[in-house]
Structure formats: structure tokens, C-alpha cells
């Protein structure tokens, strides 16, 4: 397929599609990653939407991006900075100028570089010199003109013609990677099946882009990324919200319960509700409620009545749910609350990522209010931890807070599809009528969980509620009973520690520096530490998914290192939590509060400073 003057073989490549909200960049990115996945690459993706639905065309505020990281080694992040940027207009250059790899390639539509667009993007005249990126590998193509030309014989309206520009760019990129066009052509056929002309137009333009790239000499170097050595199995791409939703479906099936979700839409959590709303075929009861409070309250009602109940939200919504969450604590009902974190405080940065709801999750309620707190580490991880959250909630009769964030929710990666039979069965502690009087708060000796007495069962009629209760379930203001119950609720949650897997270490058990992370920074920390180790540093990493209770072996792990650094996207919440729990260790902290994930480079730099300053 055409000559290639220079082919660069690479372990991994990062490519970013960037353009106006209307330019179809999300779709383009998705198609590219699916094709890569089919080819056998490891990959990780991250979309980056503007906060406005449609910010003014051509402005930086309106730029929509989609980054894909493909590789034949393990890919743990969507990549810090792109090797290849596809920029549909000057604003896309401006938005990305500060975030490109040295020597990166930029493919751009020269037709879009009109005076008006250049100025709208905030440039005076020449984007490349003004942003000092004229040294990069710039590949301009008159995409708009070429697209019009390509489609001049088809009978379609000009709007539709322009909407195919992204396919031209995608075609060019495919040539760069020597990829097949089949998958994308099939997708186009499926999508526009009902409008054959549109399908034809898109295919035509896709191929036009491909051949254009082949034709012009400028398009070197081109890239080759070998397929990755991947475990056998059936795979699919999955993002964090979908994985979360599906994890709950799996848990419901393995528990033999109906799944109930009561939620109120909020970015970036809405996807969970949307995904589950589709699953009427699996009997999911999805309620879009009037507000977050109703979201959790309907879930509590459903839990009381015997469903596996879930409510999903983001930070501001979690704040609203906190009073009712305590009702679940007091009534000891199983419930999973998902907090897909975003930038705070208040409305904050609603479309950006952050890990600053940890305090709220642990402590944001009146009184002594223990709940289980779990945080997922990667998009596909969300499946596992959603399942785990539901399992723990049901088996231990307790609310569980599952924390993900904007980065996980929207990011996606290939995921090896598990079989339901390989997942553990969830044991539901249903109360049954016995001879003796039913005691609503009688506890299992081992777990301290009470039994789930489901309305409709004859003979188990009982009352629960938010007031302090005796073992029987009657209201009690007795001092000793209250202290006893406070300690029981606490102890019940603490005992779950016996089921929490031990911390794992990446690297040696003893070293100069241990990098500690939790939740969504997993991939970045892992990559940074792996690379540093390869570079010869004495370093290791460990990662927390279980925040409360913490794993048993924390002390043992921490003891192995001279320095400990906690990296998180907030002002040090987990670091402080560890300080409080493990007073004898000195935890330094590395924080970023910018609405963005860490870059691998940032973590490496910080670790080097720590190691060199030893």
C-alpha cells in the first residue's frame, strides 16, 4: 500500500483528536481506538469535553478533545502528551500547544486557518510561531476543500458534506499507522444504514483521506505499533461509568436480587443512570428522581423492601445525600452510593476530574457514622469494585461508598469480559421466621451484620428508623444502649477488613521511596514508578482501593521504605487520613488540584527530587 519513506516502530503512541464541539472528535477518537483494539493493541482513552454544550464556535472554550494511547506493552494511562495531534481548527492548536511531545506531528486543516478563526482562537496571525511550535512536524491539508471535491458528485446538502471532515482526518491517521479501514467502514454502514448516501459520503471521504496521506510525501514519518501480548479472551472497550453500571448488574445477578437505581442526573455521574435505564430487559428498576435526596431515599426504600439498591451522583449530590445516608447507617440496610468525583468545592469544575471528596465520603455526616469506602483505580476496574461494593453492602448490611471520578467515568480501555459463573455468589442474609420473637437488630456473630427482614414475609413485621434502637428495634434513649450500638456499627464496618485484600507492591519490598496512591491515579503512578525503576531508582509503589477499612498490611508495607509520598488530586486528604491512622510514619505529599489527572512526567519528576534530595 504505497511507499513509506520512514517507518518508526514504537512501543506506544499517543494521539489526540481535537476540534470544535461540532467536529465529531469524540466519534473519531472512538473509531480509532476500536480499530486499534481490534488490531490487538493495549490502549487507554480519555475524552475531554468543554463545559458548555456548545461554546461559541472556533473558540478555545469550545474545543473538544479525545486522546488515545495505544501500545504493545501495558498501557495504564491515556498518555501525558500526544505524539500526534489532529487539529481541526486554530483553537485546537491553541488549546493543545502547551501539551505536546517534543517532535510531535500535527495534522491540521489549512482551510480552517481563516483570519476570523485565527483571531477567535486568540492568535494575532500565525498560530505556529505565536505558540512557538513551528519546529514540530506540521502537516497541513486543505481538508475542507478536498472533502467538498470528493463529494461533489453526491447529492447531499453542504452541512452533511462538512460533517465528514473528521473522516478525512481519520483516513490520514489510518494511513500513518498503516491500519485497515474495514472496521470503520462497517461502522459507517451500520450507523448510516438508513441513509445510504451519507454512509457512502463518509466512506468516500475516509478513503480520500487515506489516499491523500499516501500521496503526499510530507506524511513521514509513519508509525508502527506492534500488537500487544494480550491474554486470551473476548474483549470490549469499556468506560468507567459503563463498567460501574455493569458491575452492579453482575452483583444483582449473583445475589439473585433485583437491581434498583434511584438517581438524579449530574455530570460526570449521569452515565451510570443512563446505562442502567437501558437495562429494562434485565429487570433494572431505574428511577430518575426529583433530586439527589429522593435518589438516595428511594434507594433506601427499595433496599428496605429487598432490592439491591444503588444511587449514583457526584460531589454536590453526595453532600445532599449525606443526611439520608445516615439513615442507611442507622437502619443498617445495604446500599451502594457511587460518587463520581469532579472538581470542587461547590459547582467547581463540573467537567474536570479531582479526588477531593474523600473527606466527605469518610466523614461528611452528623454523629458517628461509619460506612465502607472503596475507590476504583481504572475504568474497567469499576466493574470489579462496583461488584465488590454491592457484595459487601449486602453481606454486611451496610452502606458502601464507591468512589470513581470524571477521569475514570469517561476514560475507556479494553476489558476482558468475565463470565458470570466465575464471579463469587453473593450471600444474602435474609431473615426467616423462627420460633422465637424476631429481633431486628440481632447480629451475626462473625460479621455483626443484622438480618434483612423483607416486607411481605409473614411473621417478621418490625419497625426500623433513624432514632436509636434496641436489639428488638424499639426506640431507645438509654445511654448504655446508644454507646453499645455506636460501637457495634463501627465494629461491623471494621471487621470487613478481614475481607480486604492485602496491599500489593510494585517494585521491591524495601526501597528508598514508596509512592502511595488511591483511586484513579493508579495508572499514572504505576507507569511512573515502573519507568523510574527501569531507570535504576530505588522506588516502589502501592495503591489503595479500600479506604475504609484499610488493608491489614499497611504498617508492614510502609515499614519497608525510607520515604513515603502520597500522590493525590487534592490538597492531601488521604495523606492526612494515613497520618491519623499510622502516626508513626512520616508521609510527605504530592498534590495537584487543577481538574486534570497527573501526568506520568510530573510524578517522575517529583519522585526524582525526593530521591535525589535523600
Amino acid at each position, binding site marked *: 500500500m504505497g511507499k513509506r519513506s520512514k517507518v518508526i516502530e514504537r512501543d506506544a503512541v499517543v494521539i489526540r483528536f481535537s476540534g470544535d464541539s461540532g467536529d465529531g472528535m469524540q466519534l473519531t477518537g472512538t473509531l480509532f481506538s476500536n480499530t486499534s*483494539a481490534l488490531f490487538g493493541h493495549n490502549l487507554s482513552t480519555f475524552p475531554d469535553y468543554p463545559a458548555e454544550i456548545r461554546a461559541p464556535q472556533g473558540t478555545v472554550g469550545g474545543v473538544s478533545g479525545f486522546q488515545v494511547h495505544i501500545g504493545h506493552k501495558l498501557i495504564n494511562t491515556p498518555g501525558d502528551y500526544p505524539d500526534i495531534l489532529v487539529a481541526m481548527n486554530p483553537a485546537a492548536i491553541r488549546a493543545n500547544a502547551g501539551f505536546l511531545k517534543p517532535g510531535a506531528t500535527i495534522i491540521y486543516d489549512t482551510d480552517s486557518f481563516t483570519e476570523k478563526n485565527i483571531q477567535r482562537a486568540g492568535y494575532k496571525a500565525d498560530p505556529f510561531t505565536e505558540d512557538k511550535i513551528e519546529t514540530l512536524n506540521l502537516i497541513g491539508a486543505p481538508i475542507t476543500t478536498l472533502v467538498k471535491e470528493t463529494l461533489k458528485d453526491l447529492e447531499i446538502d453542504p452541512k452533511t458534506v462538512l460533517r465528514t471532515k473528521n473522516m478525512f482526518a481519520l483516513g490520514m491517521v489510518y494511513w500513518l499507522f498503516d491500519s485497515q479501514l474495514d472496521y470503520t467502514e462497517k461502522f459507517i454502514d451500520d450507523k448510516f444504514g438508513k441513509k445510504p448516501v451519507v454512509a457512502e459520503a463518509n466512506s468516500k471521504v475516509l478513503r480520500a483521506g487515506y489516499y491523500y496521506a499516501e500521496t503526499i510525501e510530507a506524511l513521514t514519518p509513519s508509525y508502527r505499533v506492534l500488537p500487544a501480548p494480550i491474554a*486470551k479472551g473476548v*474483549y470490549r472497550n469499556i468506560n468507567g461509568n459503563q463498567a460501574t453500571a455493569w458491575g452492579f*448488574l453482575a452483583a444483582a445477578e449473583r445475589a439473585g436480587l433485583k437491581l434498583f437505581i434511584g438517581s438524579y442526573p449530574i455530570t460526570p455521574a449521569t452515565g451510570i443512570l443512563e446505562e442502567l435505564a437501558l437495562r429494562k430487559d434485565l429487570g433494572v428498576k431505574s428511577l430518575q428522581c426529583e433530586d439527589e*435526596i*429522593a435518589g438516595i431515599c428511594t434507594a433506601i*426504600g427499595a433496599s*428496605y423492601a429487598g432490592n439491591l439498591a444503588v444511587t449514583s451522583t457526584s460531589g454536590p449530590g453526595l453532600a445532599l445525600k449525606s443526611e439520608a445516608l445516615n439513615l442507611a447507617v442507622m437502619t443498617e440496610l445495604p446500599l451502594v452510593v457511587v460518587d463520581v468525583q469532579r472538581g470542587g468545592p461547590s459547582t467547581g469544575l463540573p467537567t474536570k476530574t479531582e479526588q477531593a471528596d474523600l473527606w466527605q465520603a469518610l466523614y461528611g455526616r452528623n454523629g458517628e457514622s461509619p460506612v465502607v469506602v472503596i475507590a476504583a483505580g481504572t475504568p474497567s476496574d469499576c466493574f470489579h469494585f462496583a461488584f465488590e461494593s454491592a457484595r459487601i453492602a449486602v453481606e454486611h448490611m451496610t452502606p458502601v461508598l464507591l468512589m470513581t471520578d470524571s477521569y475514570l467515568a469517561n476514560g475507556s480501555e479494553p476489558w476482558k469480559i468475565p463470565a458470570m459463573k466465575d464471579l463469587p455468589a453473593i450471600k444474602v442474609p435474609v431473615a426467616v421466621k423462627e420460633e422465637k420473637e424476631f429481633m431486628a437488630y440481632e447480629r451475626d456473630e462473625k460479621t455483626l451484620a443484622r438480618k434483612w427482614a423483607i416486607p411481605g414475609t409473614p411473621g417478621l*413485621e418490625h419497625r426500623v428508623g433513624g432514632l436509636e434502637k434496641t436489639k428488638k428495634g424499639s426506640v431507645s434513649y438509654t445511654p448504655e444502649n446508644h454507646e453499645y450500638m455506636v460501637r457495634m456499627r463501627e465494629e461491623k464496618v471494621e471487621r470487613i477488613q478481614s475481607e480486604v485484600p492485602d496491599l500489593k507492591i510494585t517494585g521491591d519490598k524495601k526501597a528508598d521511596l514508596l509512592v502511595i496512591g488511591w483511586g484513579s491515579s493508579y495508572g499514572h503512578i504505576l507507569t511512573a514508578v515502573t519507568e523510574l525503576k527501569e531507570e535504576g531508582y530505588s522506588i516502589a509503589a502501592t495503591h489503595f482501593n479500600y479506604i475504609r477499612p484499610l488493608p491489614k498490611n499497611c504498617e508492614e508495607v510502609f515499614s519497608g521504605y525510607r520515604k513515603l509520598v502520597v500522590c493525590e488530586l487534592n490538597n492531601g486528604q488521604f495523606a492526612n487520613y494515613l497520618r491519623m491512622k499510622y502516626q508513626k510514619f512520616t508521609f510527605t505529599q504530592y498534590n495537584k488540584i487543577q481538574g486534570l489527572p497527573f501526568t506520568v512526567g510530573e510524578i517522575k519528576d517529583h519522585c526524582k527530587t525526593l530521591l535525589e534530595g535523600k
Partner: protein
Amino acid sequence: MAETNTIQYTAKDFKSDQEVRWCPGCGDHGILASLQKTLADMGIAREKYVFVSGIGCSSRLPYYMNTYGFHSIHGRAAAIATGVKIANPDLMVWEMTGDGDALAIGGNHFIHAVRRNIDIKILLFNNEIYGLTKGQYSPTSQKGLVTKTSPFGTIEEPFKVGELTIGSHGRFFARTVDYNLQLSGEVYREAALFRGTTVVEVIQNCVIFNDGVHDAITNKEFRDDRTIVLHQGQPMIFGKDRDKGLILEGIKLKVVKIGENGITEKDLLVHDAEEANPGIHYMLAGMQYPEYPFALGVIRAVKMQTYDGAMIEQHRHVQSISKIRSVDELLMSGSTWVVE
């Protein structure tokens, strides 16, 4: 929902072992008694009932019912009850609430439950005061009422429960009085049998913090002249001597005396709770003494698909067309690829 008339109960079967803790003389006692009696007569299995409440004196009721009960948090009973009903449509879900619980902090869940027409039975104990917190005004307190938080009289107009219910697209609204066990029993039964959100406002006396506030319409001496009990298909007659009635004059209701100005029973409006057009029900629910008699009984009862019913239907429909029947199938659906 559960079938009626299958089991023989007496009111005692619905009494729990908990000591009743309302003030002596509180109207809540009558409500409880009437409810226990009504439920016993319905013959639905006891374990099918769930009583959900918020917080307030009124919200204590579930403790005294020997059924499933959930004494939740302030204002959220409607949302919790919704969850219970959706999770298990086979249960009969009652919500016990007060004027503060349902209409102050719980106002949003109230109007949305009503709008959705979810099959829960709301009993709103309206004593026009916050009893449990010892006497602050509520959203139904009459303008000018002196309470602990309005030492110089309130300056806000109250909600009328019926107007708010119908304004929220309500299909069932009824009203009764705490001491009138007979009427209450009838109304509770109608509510129980109706499919959809039923709002029953119970005019309730709080002997401690708002004693006698309903006197103008509940006092034995005049109550027959100042209230009208509406019955389906019956002319709107009232008065001790059953000599007064209601007619429509232009766009308004009007009280007339039978026999005067040639008015006969035939000229009176006939009550039709099942009329879908809410206009007349809205006016009936809004009637207030002295201009009008205060309306009791079932004012509106218009059948409509319930939210829970529609959900069941939609599930059935989707399940009949979807190819996905298990999580395994779901996970394998759409774009996947095989690594060998």
C-alpha cells in the same frame, strides 16, 4: 397489589406492642384507631402493609401498627415509600406524615409523588403546627397565627393541601376529621382501594400547641352547617337541616338555601369525583368557611395509569423485544473482539 378480603382480622391484630406516646386528647389517637379498624376490615394480609413515615408526632404512627414500618427522616417519607413500592409492587404502602413533614421540608417529594401517581396512600395529619418540635408555625398555619417562631403572628399565607395536590396533577384527594371515625374509615378504605397516589388530609387537633384551631368547622354545635360531606353521584347538600347546597354561578361556586328563590335539590351540583377536568375539584378543595362550607369526603378520584404499573408494563414490553436476557449476554453484545 395484594387481594382484599381474604383474611379475618380485628383491629387488635393491627396494634403493635409499643406504648402509644401521643398526648392524651391528641387527635392522632383517633386516626390510629380508625386506621387499625379499616385495615382489619380490608382483609389484606398484615405482612403486605408497609407504613412509612417521616418525623413528627404524626410520623410516630408506624410504631403502633403491627405491620412493617419505617420511621424515616424528616420530609422524606414520600421518596422512601416510592422506593418501597417500586421495589415490591405487591406491597400496600402507606405514608404517614404531618403538615410540616409533607409540605415544609418534604414538599418536593410530595408534589412529585403526586405527579407520578405512584401507588402510595398518603395520610397527612394537618394540625397546622409543628407538634414534635413544640409549637412553631407550619406551611398550613393560618396567617397571623402566634407561635414560638411567629411571636407577632405569621405573615405568610398557608398552602391548602387540596389545591397543592390537584395543582401537582393529583388524581385522588380526600378529607376527613380526626374524631370522625366513621367518615375516616370510609375515606381510608376508598384510598386503599384506589390505584395511584392518594392524598387524604386529616384535620387534626393538637391539644398542646394549637388547640381548637379547627374549632370553627369541627365544633359540634356548628359543624354540620359549616362542612359538606361529598358523596359520589349525590347532590351537594349540607347543613344540620340538610337545607343548604352548592351551585355554580358563572365561574364560581355559590351556597344556596333550598326552598329560597325557587331553588330545589335538582338545581344543586352533583358530585362527580371521577370527572377528569380538575376545575371543579380545585374549587371544592379550596372552599373555606365562612364563605363556603368546608368540604369533606372524597373530593377527587380520577383513574390513571400508575407509575409503578407503567414501569411493570414497560419492563414487560422491553423484555419481549430485547435479545438480552442475562448479564453474560449483555457483556457479549455490541462491539467485542477476540484475542486468541
